[in-house]
């Protein structure tokens, strides 16, 4: 990770609406080039947090710096430099795709080549189409195009694939992966676990206005109380008496004695030990698989809630 100033730094951020405390003291730092996910159920405070960082809402307390700007006091400079893809926004029905691009380009001090951007988001053929005639996926691609129009180094994506069908979601994911390869910093909120697992370098799990866990998706999974299970299959049956492998909790054999399941909290260490043992026993390994607890399991463990409630 680079040593430059972080793209976003948030310290004890609070936001209240009257007596309702939507955000109750959140801290995190996002390095530039990082893809950071805010994961949480509806009403957890994700959107409020993101909107404060985008300069859309004033905060009640705490310190926030985004690209070196204070979102409360340097709103316009900040908005000129970031790209934002909000939930539930619309454009006029009778605006053409290229007209939308032109008018949004005029709002920024600099903008990218509009034709190239259309090409990149596969909207070239639709450039003269009215917004009202676009499909859900095309509308979302246009929303992304508008978010990229000022060539932002920092992009906010608020639930970028909610409500899209699975095929379109895959399409959007590969676009986001491309942005990630360009080392753009991305802060996204989502309630799709697979999305966070696939795209995010680090994930913060937010619940009731607080961050209850923050780490890489892999390490969050390791923190789970649920152990991973290693399943090995051999060509010949396993012997009935087996040693205890490093970090293993328990093991069991299926009725054919050829498939062994070993539970472990640190599957990597166990697996090395297990494979060594299989080799010493002169068994022929035909299949190995590792089942880790999903981020969803971790989430439910931590919050006691399902993500889509």
């Amino acid at each position: 990770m680079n040593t430059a100033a972080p793209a976003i730094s948030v310290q004890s951020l609070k936001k209240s609406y009257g007596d309702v405390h939507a955000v109750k003291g959140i801290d995190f730092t996002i390095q530039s080039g990082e893809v950071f996910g805010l994961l949480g159920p509806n009403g957890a405070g994700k959107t409020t947090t993101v909107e404060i960082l985008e300069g859309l809402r004033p905060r009640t307390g705490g310190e926030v710096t985004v690209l070196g700007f204070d979102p409360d006091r340097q709103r316009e400079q900040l908005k000129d430099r970031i790209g934002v893809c909000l939930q539930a926004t619309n454009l006029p029905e009778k605006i053409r795709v290229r007209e939308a691009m032109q008018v949004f380009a005029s709002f920024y001090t600099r903008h990218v080549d509009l034709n190239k951007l259309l090409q990149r988001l596969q909207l070239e053929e639709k450039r003269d189409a009215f917004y009202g005639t676009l499909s859900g996926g095309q509308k979302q691609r246009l929303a992304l195009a508008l978010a990229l129009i000022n060539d932002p180094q920092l992009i906010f994506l608020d639930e970028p694939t909610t409500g899209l069908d699975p095929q379109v979601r895959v399409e959007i994911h590969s676009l986001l992966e491309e942005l990630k390869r360009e080392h753009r910093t991305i802060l996204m909120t989502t309630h799709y676990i697979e999305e966070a697992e696939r795209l995010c370098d680090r994930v913060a799990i937010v619940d009731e206005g607080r961050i209850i866990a923050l780490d890489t998706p892999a390490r969050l999974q390791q923190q789970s109380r649920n152990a991973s299970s290693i399943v090995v299959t051999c060509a010949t049956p396993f012997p009935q008496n087996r040693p205890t492998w490093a970090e293993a909790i328990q093991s069991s054999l299926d009725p054919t004695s050829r498939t062994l399941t070993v539970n472990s909290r640190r599957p990597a260490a166990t697996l090395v030990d297990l494979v060594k043992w299989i080799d010493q026993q002169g068994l022929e390994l035909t299949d190995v698989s590792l089942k880790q607890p999903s981020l969803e399991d971790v989430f439910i463990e931590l919050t006691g809630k399902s993500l889509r409630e």
Partner: protein
Amino acid sequence: MKSYKALITLDLKLALRQKSVIFFNYLFPLIFFFIFGQAMHAERGAAMTIVISMVLIIGILGNGLFGAGIRAVQEREANILRRYKVTPISPAPLLVASVVTGWILYMPNVLLIFTLAHFLYGMPWPNSMPSILLFTTIAICGFRSIGLILASVVNSMQESQLLVQLIYLPMLFLSGATFPLAMFPSWLLVVTQFVPATYMVTGIQGMLLRNEGIAANIQPAVALLLTAFVGLFISYKLFRWEKEEKIRASAKLWLAAVLTPFLLLGFWQMHARTGIAKTKILNRQLARSETLLIRGARIFVGDGQVIENGSVLVRSGKIAAV
């Protein structure tokens, strides 16, 4: 500056793609023009000036209240403004673009109506045309602003429809655009002096009938201009990008603030009564504007002479020939 230009261009394109805009902004006034033109025998005398002032006021009211007001609420309700909120622009280019677009869309109408009046009904080209154009420009800006402030104080589409009707109908009926002010009892005439639209009607009629310039209508012109600026400023201050942000009910009083110039003008008129006097003069002038020929009459001429079975030609209220 780029964003102002881009938004004006976009607003114009969007407006011209909307069937309702084409109908209400262009066709509707023409329908009124021909109906009133036929009904009032606009080919005779100065009746055309009534038709023109009626058509202009109906158009400008609609352009301002529906074109600016209702549309601004629609954009907020449809989450379109929410998309603009994350860009670096302020509400200023959106508001200014709305006013400028309304003006560009409406002005061809003014020219079209005068051209039709000239060629179809034989109305001479008015000498005060520059003043008329300037005055209608100020009026459009004023009423667009009223529409915008209306949009900024309502919380829903239904509320905006209601408020627009509450302003539109009295303005239409009390301005003298639909019922001639001559029909009004004197207490109602006083009420009309508080209605911005009244000044538009008397202003345009004065310019047409009496060749008045903008200087003779400086009070209403200034009041409309003030309305435009105050309205834009308050709309800017109260601007909301999202339908979820609600405004308190008392904010509707800001609408009254925009109409303050006319409230002051109305009170001043209660005292000075020049507006009512002007209305009466205009009505008298309109009434005697027809050319009249009385035939087969016994005429007693001033010098004592009596003409049996003679004719008198009356033009603009004066005897032109015997």
